[in-house]
């Protein structure tokens, strides 16, 4: 796995963490709930894509 993939996974996980914080606190001051949930959906898809791209061949 490349360093870039690892970096992208870490960043995406961190974004999801931030969004879970906003949702759990119901803080929609800056972003609406639907905006945040759309971002969550997009990031989960991105994570799936990143993991699918990790080769396990030796």
């Amino acid at each position, binding site marked *: 796995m490349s360093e870039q993939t690892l970096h992208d996974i870490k*960043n995406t996980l961190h974004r999801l963490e*931030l969004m879970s*914080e906003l949702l759990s606190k119901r*803080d929609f*001051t*800056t*972003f609406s709930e639907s905006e945040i949930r759309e971002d969550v959906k997009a990031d989960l898809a991105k994570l799936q894509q990143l993991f699918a791209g990790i080769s396990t061949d030796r």
Partner: protein
Amino acid sequence: MDKIICLGKNYAAHAQEMKEALPEKPVLFLKPPSCFTELKENVGITLPWSRGTIHHECEVVLKLYKKNVIAVSLGLDLTLRDLQKQLKEKGHPWEISKCFKHSALVAPFVAQRDFADWRTATFRLKVNGEVRQEASLKDALFSPDAAIHHANDHFPMNDGDLVFTGTPQGVGPLNPGDNVTLEWGPINLTFRLLE
């Protein structure tokens, strides 16, 4: 978090006490995430006392998502002042005076919905019960939005980045044994400095 973006000389009275000119644009520097420590009530913190005078710089701290503020807190941008002065005099970079363990101490973040007037509320730093620093973000030379905009012109911004928005006047030394209190809206937290 990817990085901590810090503003220098963002309060006129602080620039004056440091005998420095007012900046035309926000002055920016970075701290790595390894400097960050989230404070807890009554926690004991040990600082590198053997490296010279350590000054407190009390600052409003912003947490960003998509280049917008999503949470706020109050923190200390700690500075090895003697070392910083020596490095400045030689014209050298002064990161080593700003980047050490616990040099970015931050109280737990507060959601904006729980602190509606954070842009105008007075924040305060007390050391052993004595008020050392007191100001409001409205006294700053550059607003949070202007600072974020300027940082975005110069750095690749990542979600979760923190912004230390600069310190007002009253910076001064900390010592082992001090009890330090941060007060701002719903934040009221005291911690101890250990030997």
